[in-house]
């Protein structure tokens, strides 16, 4: 197993280098100008100087190499320094990947935004799973019952109605009409006592539930299909023929088999949690990663877009590996050598 993981990680290196190159090249080819958002009164020579100062005067391959150095060497070194409070070499003059728009290091921006995204999107993913798995099991076990019909109906809604609709609907109902929940997520809010904790829950409720509905819809369908698939297998009949309780048949025999594809699906979905939920974050004004990315794209903040996209790529490659390893752990028929 260790051998397999190491090999997969080594294979990931060329993949990621290729991805970084494609990302860099695509963004470079895209027609954009970092000075485009600046006032029109700024003369052309000044704009040219700004571009020079951002390093845009150099040829493509030099810029790509510089970015590689900054991202793979300088930023990790910086993170290590921060984590352990030590100094490695000349950290003052070490170049970091900086946002064109704010001139602050991209990694700092991401670290600043990550907690909001993880709390809101991560929690919604977790709640989605916790809702979806039992619903999927019961729906499959009682196929075509009213519970299953209702579950199917709600899943279809969660699946097909976009979050910008359910989000706005939730705001109209809970913020405008009932005035129960705040419609704007206050990132600066600090939990210090019970009252502020309650406010935190209230401001998280809508974005989390809107996203949870969407996630639960997908996972519950998948769970239902997996359980249905296994319920008709011969080994279920064997388990019943042994005189086991229905509970044991369902939760030990059927569930163990049904969870294999679902766990894989869940693992593959985790990178999207880090990626944030652009639309939902935008609607509820959650200052998360998705918000950061969309603002960066609008402002042609290439280093930020580049770094964020590449980090998503790293996460996707990583969780693909994790999903494969989990598959091998859950299914004894699969052995990695």
């Amino acid at each position: 197993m260790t051998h397999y993981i190491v090999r997969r990680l080594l294979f990931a290196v060329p993949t990621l280098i290729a991805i970084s190159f494609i990302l860099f090249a695509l963004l470079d080819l895209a027609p954009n100008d970092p000075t485009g958002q600046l006032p029109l009164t700024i003369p052309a020579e000044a704009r040219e100087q700004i571009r020079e100062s951002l390093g845009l005067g150099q040829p493509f391959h030099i810029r790509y190499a510089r970015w590689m150095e900054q991202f793979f060497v300088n930023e990790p070194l910086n993170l290590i320094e921060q984590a352990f409070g030590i100094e490695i070499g000349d950290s003052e003059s070490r170049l970091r990947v900086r946002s064109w728009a704010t001139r602050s290091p991209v990694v700092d921006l991401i670290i600043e935004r990550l907690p909001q995204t993880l709390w809101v999107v991560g929690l919604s993913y977790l709640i989605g799973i916790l809702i979806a798995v039992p619903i999927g099991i019961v729906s499959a076990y009682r196929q075509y019952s009213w519970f299953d019909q209702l579950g199917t109906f709600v899943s279809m809604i969660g699946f097909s109605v976009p979050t910008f609709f359910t989000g706005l609907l939730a705001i109209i109902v809970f913020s405008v009409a009932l005035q129960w929940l705040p419609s704007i997520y206050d990132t600066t809010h600090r939990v210090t006592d019970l009252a502020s904790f309650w406010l935190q829950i209230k401001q998280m409720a809508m974005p989390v539930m809107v996203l949870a509905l969407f996630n639960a819809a997908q996972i519950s369908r998948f769970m239902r299909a997996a359980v249905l698939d296994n319920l008709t297998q011969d080994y279920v009949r064997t388990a019943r023929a042994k005189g086991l309780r229905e509970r044991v048949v369902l939760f030990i025999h059927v569930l163990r088999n049904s969870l294999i594809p679902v766990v894989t699906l869940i693992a593959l979905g985790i990178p999207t949690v880090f990626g944030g939920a652009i639309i939902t974050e935008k609607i509820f004004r959650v200052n998360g990663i998705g918000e950061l990315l969309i603002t960066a794209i609008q402002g042609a903040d290439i280093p930020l877009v580049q770094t964020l996209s590449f980090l998503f790529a790293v996460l996707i490659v990583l969780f693909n590996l994790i999903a494969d390893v989990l598959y091998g752990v859950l299914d004894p028929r699969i052995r990695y050598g």
Partner: protein
Amino acid sequence: MTAAEEDRQVEPVAGPASRQPVLSVRDLRTRFRTPDGAVHAVNGIGFDLHEGELLGVVGESGSGKSVTMLSLLKLLPMPPAEIVSGQALLDGEDLLALDPARLRHVRGAKVGFIFQDPMASLNPVLSVGYQLTEPLRTHLGLSRRAARRRAAALLEGVGIPAADSRLGDFPHQFSGGMRQRVMIAMALACDPKVLIADEPTTALDATIQAQILDLLQRLRRERGMAIVWITHDLGVVAGLADRVMVMYGGQAVERADVRSLYARPQHPYTRSLLRALPKIEGGSRGERLASIPGQPPTLVRAPDACPFAPRCAHAFARCHAENPALAAVTESHEVACWYDAEAGVPRAA
């Protein structure tokens, strides 16, 4: 091995002579509700099974052999299946009338089941040891350790070498024949009175098939349990069974002592089946095997006529109008047919 188990092994086998049946099934009817109407899968099957007896149930695919046996323990998916009528007495208890909790105490404890495909019938993600200890812990209330010891002994008993070390293995780590041995060990775990073997050797190759047959014969002698052996292989039945029930279209068309059945087959269906067997001597080379014309019945119609009539060479008007019931030809031989095949004339009404 416990003292009780050793006792049982030296006990002389109670043959078919003991007259009180272990399992007695009467007028079992099972239907499947489908969008195209009801499928009458089992139409009034009845049989007695005595201690130590091996009853061979023969018939082609779709004749209702498996459905009959699965109905007894309600192992069919319900719906679409429903048991319309019937009685199945085991130890004076009607299995078909038991509530689910009581039925669970019969399944695996008093009646063991072996299924056809040992790969699909074992749970792929649970270890063989776990699956084997399940019935032991459920029915006998054994502790984890005791159940494990017993499971190892069971595997040893069905001829799996190094049984102790194989308990942690998963089904895919066993060969086909070994998997079927595991299935057998599982079915026998709680010393059932009745073992139902649903085509246990069909998925195996010929050598392994012979080994499994030997194994089951030995276990039957050792434990004196009654076996229902479902198969479409008349050769297997001839060498194994005490009595045979031939099924066609969800009905028993002939029921007889094994010798009597092969010596004097009565029903036209049985006779054609026996003619369809390849012969080692006698038949000249290049001679084609006899086959039965037509297709097996679809069973959508209610059983108001002889199900075999459309394919029967001897069918006459009555066969299409009335469904014959089993009637005794000799003391140990019953047939459900309006035509006396031996005499070549219709039976007297």
